[in-house]
C-alpha cells in the first residue's frame, strides 16, 4: 500500500518533470539562432515563399501559442511532423528507439559483467598485486571518455585486427524478415542466429565503448562496498561455519554490497544513454542519438522536441526502475520500514 502510494507520487512528479523539459526544449530551440525554413528553401526564394512556409509550419505564431498547439497535438498522440522528412515525429522516433535501447542495454549488460568480475576478482585478491593492477586499469578506464574508447576500439578491432563491423546496425545487403525494430531481440526469437551474429558484430564496439567507463565505476564501487562488507560480523560468523572465501563473498557479502552500487548504476545508466548520441554518430549506428544530431543540424524543431522528450521519459523510467528494484532487493524497505 505504502509502496503503491509512493509509486503514484513518482508518476505525478514524472509528469511534472516531463512538462518542464518540454517547456525548456521548446523555448530554447526557438530562441537560439538558426532558422529551419531558411535551410529548406532553395537559393533565390522570395520573401513570400519564406512567409508561406513559415505559416505552414506554424512558426509565425508566438512561442506560447506554438507550445499550446504542440501540447494539444501531444495529448492526441501527435508530436508533429518532421520538417526534413515530412513524416510524423512519433513514427520516426519510435522507429529508432529500439536500436538505441538495444545498444544501451547491451552496453549495460557488458558493464555489469565486466564491473562485477573486476569487483569479485579484486575482493578475492584484496591486498595483492592483482588488486593493484585492477585499480590501475579502473583508473584508466574512468579517465578516458566513451567516444575516445570508441576510437581506440575502431583502431584495434576495425583496423589492426578487423573482426567486427565498424559502422551501421546490420549489413545492408542482408534480407531482414523482422516485423519489429528490435533486431537483436527478434533475431533470437526467430532463431536466426546468422542475423544475430551480424547484428552483434555491428553492436559490439559501440556497446563496449559505452560500457568501459561504466564497468570501471561499477567495479570500483562494488569492490569498495564488498570489502567493507567482508569485515562485518555475519561474514565472520559464516567463516566459522566452515565456508570458504568464494562462498562468503558471493552469498553473504554480495547481496548486501550490491545495494549502494545499484543506485549509482541507475544514475550512470542515464549518462550512458546520453553517451549514445556521440557513439552512435561515431559508428554510424542508426539509432535515436544519430537522428538527434541530424535533427539539430537541420533545425528540425518538431523532431528535436520529440527526441528530447523521449530521452527524458527514458531517464525517468530508468530512475523509477532503479528505485523499485532497490525496494525489491532490500527486505527492510520491502516491509515498509
Amino acid at each position, binding site marked *: 500500500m505504502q509502496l503503491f502510494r509512493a509509486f503514484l507520487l513518482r508518476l505525478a512528479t514524472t509528469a511534472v518533470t516531463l512538462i518542464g523539459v518540454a517547456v525548456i526544449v521548446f523555448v530554447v530551440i526557438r530562441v537560439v539562432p538558426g532558422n529551419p525554413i531558411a535551410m529548406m528553401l532553395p537559393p533565390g526564394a522570395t520573401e513570400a515563399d519564406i512567409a508561406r512556409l513559415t505559416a505552414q509550419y506554424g512558426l509565425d505564431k508566438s512561442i506560447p501559442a506554438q507550445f499550446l498547439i504542440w501540447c494539444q497535438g501531444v495529448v492526441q498522440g501527435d508530436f508533429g511532423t518532421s520538417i526534413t522528412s515530412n513524416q510524423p515525429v512519433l513514427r520516426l522516433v519510435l522507429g529508432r528507439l529500439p536500436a538505441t535501447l538495444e545498444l544501451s542495454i547491451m552496453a549495460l549488460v557488458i558493464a555489469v559483467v565486466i564491473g562485477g568480475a573486476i569487483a569479485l576478482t579484486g575482493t578475492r585478491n584484496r*591486498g595483492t598485486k592483482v588488486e593493484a593492477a585492477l585499480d590501475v586499469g579502473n583508473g584508466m578506464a574512468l579517465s578516458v571518455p566513451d567516444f575516445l574508447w570508441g576510437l581506440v576500439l575502431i583502431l584495434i578491432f576495425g583496423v589492426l585486427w578487423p573482426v567486427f563491423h565498424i559502422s551501421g546496425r546490420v549489413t545492408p545487403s542482408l534480407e531482414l524478415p523482422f516485423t519489429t525494430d528490435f533486431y537483436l531481440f527478434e533475431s533470437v526469437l526467430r532463431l536466426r542466429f546468422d542475423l544475430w551474429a551480424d547484428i552483434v558484430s555491428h553492436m559490439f564496439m559501440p556497446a563496449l565503448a559505452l560500457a568501459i567507463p561504466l564497468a570501471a565505476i561499477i567495479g570500483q564501487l562494488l569492490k569498495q562496498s564488498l570489502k567493507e562488507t567482508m569485515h*562485518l*560480523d*555475519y561474514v*565472520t*560468523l*559464516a*567463516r*566459522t*561455519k*566452515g*565456508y*570458504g572465501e568464494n*562462498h562468503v563473498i558471493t552469498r*553473504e557479502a554480495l*547481496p*548486501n554490497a550490491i545495494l549502494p552500487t545499484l543506485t549509482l548504476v541507475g544514475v550512470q545508466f542515464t549518462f550512458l544513454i546520453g553517451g549514445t548520441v556521440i557513439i552512435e554518430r561515431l559508428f554510424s549506428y542508426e539509432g535515436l542519438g544519430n537522428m538527434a544530431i541530424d535533427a539539430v543540424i537541420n533545425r528540425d524543431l518538431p523532431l528535436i522536441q520529440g527526441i528530447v522528450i523521449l530521452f527524458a521519459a527514458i531517464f525517468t523510467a530508468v530512475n523509477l526502475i532503479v528505485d523499485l528494484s532497490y525496494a525489491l*532487493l*532490500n*527486505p*527492510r524497505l520491502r*516491509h515498509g*520500514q
Partner: protein
Amino acid sequence: MSFLKITGLSARLKGTAFPILRDVSLEVAAGEVHGLVGESGAGKSMIGKAVLGILPASVEITRGAIELDGMDLLSLPPAERRRRIGATAALIPQDPLTALNPSRRIGPQVTDRLVDILGWPRARAETRARELLAEVHIPDPERVMRSYPHELSGGMRQRILIASAFAAEPKLIVADEPTTALDVTVQKQILKLIAEMQARHGTALLFVTHDLGVVSKVCQSLSVLYGGKVMEATTVRDFFRQPAHGYSRALLAATPKYTDPAASLTPVPDAVIAAVQAEIAAHDRSLRHG
C-alpha cells in the same frame, strides 16, 4: 583428556614485532566451561578467534599449536581446517544486531551449516532448526524462520544465534562476550540460557568476558590475561578464594560490588600494572634467549 589444547601460542601484528599473544597455553576439557578474562586489548578475544580460524588478516600466528579434538589445526591445509572447525566448533558472537545477514531469512542462516558443511538433507535440517529455536524459548519458530533479522529484537536474535551455534552439536563453543551488547535485563536471561544449553548438550565452552561476575556464575575454570599473556590459570573456586597472581587480586578488587557502592570502582593500581609489565618484559627476554 582435554578437548581443546593450546600450547605456546604466540601471535603478532603482521610485519611488526608487536605481540598480540605471548606464549599462551590453556586446556579445556570436554564439557568444561573455561573463562577468558582480562581488560580490553588483553588478547582474550584473539584466543577465541585463533581457535575458530578467524583472526583478522593483520594478525599472524608465529608459533605454537592449537589442538581441537585431537586435530592439530595449524598443520591442516586451510580448506580442510575450515571444514573441520565448522563441523566441531561454533561461535556465539558478541553483537546480535550485526551477526545475522540482513538480506537472508533466519531459517537458512540456522540450517546452512547443517546442509552445506555436514551434508544433511534440507528437511531434516529444518526440523532440527525448529526444535532448537523452541529449545531457546522462541515462540512460533515457524514464523521466526521465515522472518528477516530486522523484524526481530536483539534478545530474540541472540537466542537465534545461540540456537544456531548448537545446531551441529559442536563439541566446543566460543562465546565472545555474548551479553555485552544487550540490555541488562536481557543479559541475565541470555546468560542463563547459555548455561542451560551448555549443561544440556555437554558442550565445552570458551567464555570470553571482562565481567568476573559472569565468570563466577557460568565458568568452572578461567585464564586471566594481560598484554596477550596468561597471568594465571586456575579453577573459579580457587580464583575467588585465593587468587595467586598480584594482577588477579587487583582485578578482583577492581570489580564493582553491588553490596557496597561506596567502595566500588577501585582501578587496578599503577604499581600492579608496572609489576605485570616488568614480568611480561622478562618473559619476552627469556623467549628471545631461550
